[in-house]
């Protein structure tokens, strides 16, 4: 079978770690999709739950709030990875429950 466990951990550590230009707590909040103020709250919520509705205005609002393009890039990446991570982890928990942990 495939083994993404190490690569998954490394990806999450990279986007939440020291390589970012946005403040670490802001990237963590984007990853968790919680604790952000507008306009980032709307942007992150859309990326996590309705990414098809992210608009140029959402990006412009984040830029107008003082974020650089690189910081917007990082916030969007953290939001996407955070939501996919929660879904993945939840599904693995459901699988463990179905198999009694023998996966």
């Amino acid at each position, binding site marked *: *079978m*495939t*083994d*993404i466990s190490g*690569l*998954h951990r490394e*990806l999450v550590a*990279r*986007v939440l770690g020291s*390589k*970012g230009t946005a403040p670490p707590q802001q990237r963590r909040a984007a990853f968790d999709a919680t604790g952000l103020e507008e306009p980032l709250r709307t942007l992150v919520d*859309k*990326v*996590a*739950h309705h*990414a*098809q509705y*992210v608009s*140029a205005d959402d*990006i412009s609002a984040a830029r107008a709030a003082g974020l650089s*393009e*690189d910081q*917007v*890039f*990082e916030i*969007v*990446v953290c*939001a*996407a*990875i955070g*939501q*996919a*991570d929660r*879904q*993945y982890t*939840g*599904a*693995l928990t*459901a*699988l463990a*429950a*179905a*198999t009694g942990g*023998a*996966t």
Partner: protein
Amino acid sequence: MRLQILDCGHRLPTKALLAVIRVVSGHPVVDAVKLALYRPDFYGAGALTHEAMRGPSEWSVGDRELMAAFVAQAVESPFCIAAHSATSTLWFDDAAKVTATLADLDTAPIEEPLRATLRMLGKIAAEQAIDADDMRAVLDVGVTPAQIEDALAVGLAFGITARLANAFDFDLATPAAMNAGAKHLLRRGYR
């Protein structure tokens, strides 16, 4: 592409590589490649995606490409639907199978284990609650726990990629460019 840095903010060696890709492929560089090559020390999910899509698995490459397209459809990502439909079609040499699966999973001409697995992936991607009963429904048609974990890895990779494709507004490349990309993905993978 919504952020200018993703279009033209790459470092010089990467810009040279993008130019080579343009010349060799004969097509504009697709936005997925521009994203993958932008600050790989920060995002750089290529290795994870490659392992999920090309690592050892009881699922075929075509099955996993179809899973990627199915997840992309659940999160409404036109770019990823087109890219991975093209790659799955090329692998199976069967456009009708891929089209039918995305149009109506219940009647698509695919094996039951793949159908149940796609149904589970679609439910997760659509953010519906998933529990042990959902997993038992997949196991009951003969899918192994290892196969489910492999499918969930595809779901993770494309849960990320499809969201980014939408958020950054990836241009939908021409069918010719998508087919060229599909050939590359089958030849070289995602690294």
